């Protein structure tokens, strides 16, 4: 009888310990916020060396991305709707995060249309969004160094009217303080996705 009681007590303690351990594990995992919309790149991906120029005429290199978080979008100023819509969403998201006292990332537009997007054109374009968007571009080979490493596609497409458009990836990259790709947002984009996930991503960097 005494042996049976001891056995039962041991089984009870074992079950209680196991249950407690499972509860603790779940509590720890649940406490770590996860992005709801963005895809985190396992291990992050460092960017290679590249040499571009921003809309103020300053050099823009891999070093320019270090020490702060950035949201990077690839597009062009003649893009009729998806580029201005995405930049507007990013600007509004940053504005909302600033109002709530949250640190915000830099917003960078990389133009994949250097033929038309001079620094002057880019300066007028990014100022239209009211925020601190940095427009950058450069020679095609230098752009390719960045886009190839980031898995970004872009290609000129002639239009029957004689002009041209540029096909391009619509993803928004999240670059961490080390200048590495930490995550990405796939299109179509929403302001709520940026507002929800950007602080989570920046807190998990």
């Amino acid at each position, binding site marked *: 009888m005494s042996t049976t009681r001891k056995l039962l007590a041991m089984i009870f303690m074992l079950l209680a310990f196991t249950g407690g351990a499972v509860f603790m594990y779940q509590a720890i995992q649940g406490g770590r916020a996860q992005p709801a919309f963005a895809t985190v790149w396992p291990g992050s991906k460092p960017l290679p060396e590249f040499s571009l120029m921003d809309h103020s005429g300053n050099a823009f290199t891999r070093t320019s991305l270090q020490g702060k978080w950035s949201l990077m979008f690839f597009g062009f*100023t003649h893009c009729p709707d998806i580029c201005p819509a995405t930049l507007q969403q990013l600007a509004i998201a940053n504005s909302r995060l600033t109002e709530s006292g949250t640190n915000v990332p830099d917003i960078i537009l990389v133009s994949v249309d250097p033929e*038309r997007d001079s620094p002057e054109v880019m300066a007028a374009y990014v100022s239209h969004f*009211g925020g601190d968007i940095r427009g950058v571009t450069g020679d095609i080979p230098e752009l390719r160094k960045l886009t190839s490493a980031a898995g970004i596609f872009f290609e000129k*497409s002639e239009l029957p009217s004689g002009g041209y458009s540029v096909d*391009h990836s*619509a993803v928004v990259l999240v670059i961490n303080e080390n200048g590495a790709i930490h995550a990405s947002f796939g299109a179509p984009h929403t302001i709520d996705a940026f507002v929800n996930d950007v602080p989570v991503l920046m807190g998990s960097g």
Partner: protein
Amino acid sequence: MKITTQVLSLAAIFLSACVPDPGPPVSITDVKILAPMPGSSAGVAYFKIENRSETTITVSRIDSPQYNDVEMHETTIEDGVSRMRPVESIRIEPASSVNFMPGEKHLMLMRPSASVVPGSPVTLEFHYDFGLLIVNATMQNRLPSE
């Protein structure tokens, strides 16, 4: 007999006058014309084309006296890549509609014939199987306040 015919004709005219006007079988609503972004001279227009007839209609062309070049385009995102392509014509099934909206079909307004700025009137001329529909709208600034 002659009097009866005249009475019937008058009655028919009276009755037809009482039937509510169904309006044109095609209507253009929700028109929004957005100013070009800095660095570009191309405006963009969005709208809804509704076909209330019992026949499929095709919009073959849209013109504007304010622009020398007006093209219907469609933006698609496939495998994460955004592409914009011209659209030759728009087919609208009976009792259905087609929306021109951001990120999808849109009208490109290129090579303005005169200065067109936010607040300027812009006329769109829709050419379709059964005639011409003219819509007048006002150009808006590209970024609406939130």
